[in-house]
């Protein structure tokens, strides 16, 4: 399910594309005055079907574009999944105090649009008396101090479902689950139909309703092509477990900033990992288990 096999129809596609779209592209270049590489990129196939050389060319292009646009060196990588790694996340509800440090660290790390604002993490405040009840929750709490006496907090981001409804409904195969379990989006292929947003039971997918505003000083220059590289208007984006960090062995940003250490991350295939330890020693649950999405994002109570 992760990567589609490169079928024999690629050749035919190339031919059709060459015939019909090249003409269109040449015209487009003439009218818009865009660089010829932009046209090539517009006509490029989706990420999983690109040859390694094409990937290299696109990465170089993106780096040049971004560096020029932001006036500083921006690197774009396509680090592949590691072998024998399947990522999982744990969040300790008994510790989370709802301070939203993770929300803003995520924005900073992942180059989300500042205005219109996009947050990949939504922290829900819930009444202790009512337990976990999404219908009674609120993300807009704003007291002087947290935690508030009678409330607890449930941060929600992409649950990285094993059985992801969002990838299934995409009409153009622009989103898929990678071998290491991260659900990613090809921003250059997404048509912005928002079907995946309807399908996601966790409100984890976010749309670029306008051209994202990302100040040059604020850009995180270490980017991944399927993750935190600057996005464009009209495409969907979501949490990737900080793909640019975790594929290099680092913890996700939200986990490193959490002042109470409620966020845990690791390899589900490694019995010694933190995530496996907590699944063994604590009791975990997932959100909306009745939908059988089989999230790799586990909530637990350490105490």
């Amino acid at each position, binding site marked *: 399910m992760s990567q589609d096999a490169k079928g024999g*129809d690629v050749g*035919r*596609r190339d031919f*059709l*594309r060459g015939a*019909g*779209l090249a003409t269109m592209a040449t015209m487009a270049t003439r009218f818009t005055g865009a660089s010829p590489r932009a046209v090539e990129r*517009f006509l490029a*196939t*989706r990420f999983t*079907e690109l040859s390694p050389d094409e990937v290299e060319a696109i990465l170089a292009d993106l780096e040049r574009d971004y560096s020029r646009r932001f006036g500083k060196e921006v690197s774009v990588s396509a680090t592949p999944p590691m072998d024998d790694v399947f990522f999982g996340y744990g969040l300790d509800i008994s510790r989370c105090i709802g301070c939203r440090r993770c929300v803003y660290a995520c924005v900073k790390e992942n180059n989300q649009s500042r205005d*219109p604002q996009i947050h990949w993490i*939504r922290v*829900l405040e819930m009444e202790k008396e009512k337990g976990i*009840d*999404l*219908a*009674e*929750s*609120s*993300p807009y709490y704003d007291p002087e101090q947290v935690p508030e006496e009678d409330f607890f907090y449930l941060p*929600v981001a992409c649950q990285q479902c094993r059985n992801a*409804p969002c990838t*299934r*409904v*995409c*009409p*153009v*195969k*622009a989103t898929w689950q990678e071998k290491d379990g991260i659900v990613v989006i090809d921003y250059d*292929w*997404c*048509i*912005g*139909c*928002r*079907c995946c*947003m*309807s*399908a*996601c*039971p*966790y*409100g984890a*997918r*976010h*749309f*670029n*309703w*306008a*051209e994202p505003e990302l100040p040059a000083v604020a850009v995180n220059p270490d980017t991944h092509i399927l993750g935190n590289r600057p996005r464009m*208007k*009209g*495409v*969907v984006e979501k949490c990737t477990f900080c793909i640019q960090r975790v594929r290099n062995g680092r913890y996700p940003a939200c986990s490193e900033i959490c002042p109470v250490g409620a966020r845990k991350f690791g390899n589900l295939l490694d019995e010694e990992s933190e995530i496996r330890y907590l699944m063994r020693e604590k009791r975990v649950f997932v959100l*909306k288990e009745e*939908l059988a999405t089989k999230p790799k994002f586990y909530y637990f109570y350490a105490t």
Partner: protein
Amino acid sequence: MTRIKQFSLFILGSARLALTGGKAYWTWVGSLLILIVWGVAAYATQLRDGLIVTNMRDQVSWAFYIGNFTFLVGVAAAAILLVIPAYVYHWKPIKEIAIFGELLAISAITMCLLFVTVDIGRPERFWHLMPFVGSLNIPSSLLGWDVLVLNGYLLLNLFIVTHLLYKAFFKRAYNKALIVPMILFSIPFAISIHTVTAFVYIGMAGRPFWNASILAPRFIASAFCSGPAILLILFQILKRLKVVDIKDEAIWKIAELMAYAMFLNLFLFGAEIFKEYYSATHHILHTQYLYSGIHGHTALVPYAWASVICSTVAFLLFLFPATRKNLVTLNIGCLLIYAGVYIEKGMALVIPGMTPDTLGEIYEYTPTMTEVRIGAAIFSIGFLIFTVMCKIAIPVLKGDFTVDSLERSG
């Protein structure tokens, strides 16, 4: 004459026909064009600034555009209500006008496709949806299937209509061996555009308001109400234009059938309401938002009740022979159905499905002026297509516009 020459003669003649008309015709076309220009200007803004100019947000990510799309899919399928009696039961009076059902289907599908186009964030990447050229996600994505069946239905109807008119223009009999199977084929196609569109919604397990298998039969039941409602009015116009002589009995018969369809629609609606309110689980929130509002958010409530009342009154009007056979009450009934289903299968289907959103947040969506303008433009384009096609089809069918008449007029 070669075929190409013949065809271009037909096209040229049709174009000339479409460009000649009386004051009423040009007033109508002119106002449609004004609306189109007004809406296209709004769409230009949307293209420049992004979908932020709509009131759609992450919480309610499909709304006015997709609501209209859903409603129009129902209208498009109405053609089969003429096709089935005409070609399956060989009912002569309807056979003569079945082509108008197909014209309606063509206009409605065009509007559907336009509504989808204006809803997507990167319309220039539409080619990603094309089989072989792009990467249509078949069989997994229901929206992918929808793209296929909608375009298939459009092409099918376009072909049938063009063939029928073209042959009539040259006063030749149409190719039965080709057209009849195609028309029969369009019946399952029409059912499938409904079913697949319903499945797009039903497939969203995280949205309990949509995730109900009753949605597909309700789509069909309500389409069997709203489609004929338009056609009944069309019939009366055609009758006055003396295109065909439609007996009042035929109209009453269709109205009676509509009463049954409406009963079925109301029954399925009742079944859904029972299930929601008797079990009263969390899933009821969406229905509650629609009919009584939650936490003071009541934007949809008047429309939801208007829809229920419209449908019920129309049902009663169509049920009793006295009101069914009175043209005034019949027409009122048609308009009520149209309004009722427009609300029910449009905004009242899409918005409550997303309110509250999957994390329980209530964002009260109402369309912006930009959305309304773009919607008006698309409806105008649909009406314009329908008008122009009728402008050509009516004289062709009446025998006023043929290759001879064209040569006579020079």
